[in-house]
């Protein structure tokens, strides 16, 4: 399974992809769709559907992580552009983008099921960062 990282910023998801690849290793395909087609901050449905197709060409299923606001709207448009069979293979994660991507990729790298990968990503929302007293 692979990941698609969707953000208003291309710089953000390019950096995140580097970080995820360093933490999880090279075996999990990751595509990004950050920024508009003319390089501004924003999201682009065509870029998102292209990124999803690129992952689905290589692996059986894909998890999409996104940042906020209109990213969700662009993602919905992108999904409409996919075939019904491809849509079935895509899971949309509610996880926070950075933490969710790292956790999802690590679980995917050990051969976990898509349900386990999705659960790992979503647990990022409540993950402790500072030591608890």
């Amino acid at each position: 399974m692979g990941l698609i990282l969707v953000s208003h910023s291309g710089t953000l998801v390019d950096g995140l992809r580097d970080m995820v690849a360093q933490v999880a290793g090279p075996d999990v395909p990751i595509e990004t769709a950050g920024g508009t087609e003319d390089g501004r901050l924003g999201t682009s449905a065509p870029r998102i559907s292209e990124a999803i197709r690129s992952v689905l060409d290589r692996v059986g299923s894909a998890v999409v992580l996104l940042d906020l606001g209109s990213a969700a709207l662009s993602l919905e448009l992108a999904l409409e552009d996919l075939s019904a069979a491809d849509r079935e293979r895509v899971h949309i994660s509610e996880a926070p983008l950075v933490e969710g991507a790292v956790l999802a990729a690590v679980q995917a790298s050990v051969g976990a099921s898509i349900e386990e990968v999705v659960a790992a990503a979503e647990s990022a929302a409540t993950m402790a960062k500072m030591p608890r007293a």
Partner: protein
Amino acid sequence: MSEIRLVVIDASGLHARPAAKFVQTASRFDSRIVLRQDGREADAKSLIALLGLTIRPSSEITLAADGPDADAALAALQAELAPYVSQAG
């Protein structure tokens, strides 16, 4: 159950990259493997659980494995952690 006690010596504690490699190594074994710190326990095959322990420098940790390949798992994981830990005295 076999176990080993270790002290984290890396200045960053058990940070994301070594923790991820640790999870990948642990996942190759059938045994149940846990990492304990201060009475809390995390499944060694779950990155979220490990990072949730917020393991810091000088923390004493216990690595425990139970199952058919427990000893091999502990040896592999101790090797994986070698740059970051010393034996607990």
